[in-house]
């Protein structure tokens, strides 16, 4: 495979891998997996005052998935939490040099983010109730 240099760099030194320390305020997480595609992804984001302060991820997958997850995590930081609901990164991944046939895998990233959103939404409902 001929990876773009951005994919290669993000894969070799992803900046937002891992989890936050336990007890960090405002944490939500979500994961998604597809055995047939051989992908698992988990996001953990810190949401304070409706804004995503920081994002972390863990991933089992190909270099594209790793790089795209890293990019998505970076992109999320500083945005409104609604960004989780519909990450809508697919078009951007192409800029990363991800070939079309790999985009299916990257939908899992959207799913994991959406799972974060659902958890956040649940928490907020709880708070409201």
């Amino acid at each position, binding site marked *: *495979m001929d*990876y773009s240099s951005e994919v*290669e760099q993000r*894969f*070799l030194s*992803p900046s937002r*891998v*891992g*989890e936050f320390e336990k007890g960090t305020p405002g944490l939500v997480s979500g994961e998604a*997996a597809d*055995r047939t595609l*051989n992908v*698992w992804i*988990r996001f953990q984001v810190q949401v304070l005052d409706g804004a995503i302060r920081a994002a972390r991820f*863990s*991933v*089992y*997958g*190909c*270099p594209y998935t*790793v790089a795209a997850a890293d990019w998505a995590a970076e992109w999320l930081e500083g945005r409104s939490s609604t960004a989780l609901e519909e990450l809508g990164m697919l078009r951007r991944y192409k800029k990363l040099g991800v070939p079309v046939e790999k985009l299916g895998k990257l939908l899992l990233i959207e799913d994991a983010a959406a799972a974060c959103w659902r958890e956040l939404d649940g928490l907020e409902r709880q708070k409201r109730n």
Partner: protein
Amino acid sequence: MIKKEIYLDYAATTPVDPAVIAVMIECLGSSGDSANPSSSHLPGRRAKARVEVARSQIAKRIGVSSDTVWFTSGATESDNMALIGAMRANAHRGRHLITSVLEHKAILDTAHALEAEGTEVTYVNHDSDGIVDPDQISEAIRDDTVLVSIMHVNNETGVLQDIAAIGQRCHECGVLFHVDAAQSTGKVALKLEDWAVDLASLTAHKTYGPMGIGAIYISEGVSLDPMIHGGEQEGGFRPGTLATHQIVGFGKAFELADPDSDGPLLAARRDRLWTGLNAIEGVFLNGHPAQRSPHVLNVTFPGVEGSSLQLALANVAISAGSACNSDIPDPSHVLRGMGLSDVLAESTLRFSVGRFTTEAEIDYVVGRIQDEVPRLRALASGAPAWTAS
């Protein structure tokens, strides 16, 4: 980022040995032996003489006589010739072919093409070590069996089949026996005549010879229909202008390819590599631990996605699955046949060492993998169990 490049993919192809390059160059330019070996003039006869020297170098290396070796474009063509040519020429004897599920695509795809034409094919299995039991071949042989085709050294795992035993079974039943020996030469000894082999496929480029030249061994008296027509070259089995420089390089490469001297060196490098990799938690070796060629090491790294491990080791040329299949995302049919899950098959790399592999290279690669595997596993920390089983 990439400091140096290390080549551990000798089973895909080998660089050409400097001594081989030298004889090839002698056959290329205006002042060299560059004439058509079929031409009757002086330079043609000189080229022809060199071709015949090469033929005998190759014959000697595989334990057959010179007049049974015919040049082709590589093992893929030889495999096709053997299967299609023998099935067609012996149609009066039957239309049943036996091969194994772990053969190279050049055999499997050809068998499928023959099936489409009405040949019945039995694909024998192997055990979890990748070994085909000779008794299974005996059991599969029927009255209408024409040919058995079993590879010698498997290109993905390095596992060695017991060709002598299978040859004996075929011989007893009067069935033709073809061996794909593309991976064997220079690594393990070949005694095709002693082993009652009727047909064999060879290639130069896995044994420090040039790509694009191979040979087929056709034992005396075996009927084979040619696949390519036109001209009388190669006893009519394989017309087309003989590629002098390629053949001469092939011959030289096989002259040099002495498993008695190369084998122990390869085994030492491979064992050093395995010792290093085996120190990594959870790693395991695929294929029979002892019945194997010294040049291939097929290793699974559970919990690490194969293409990610490959990119993490971008300056190390290794193969996920077989080289010929690298463009294809499907997990290896050989590994799955040996019982690996799709995920584990994808977490597997083939390392293959060669004449030019140094201890320092092995140590560097071991160090890199010892670093990268934990890093990639950490990246996936918390992943479900199926990613590693």
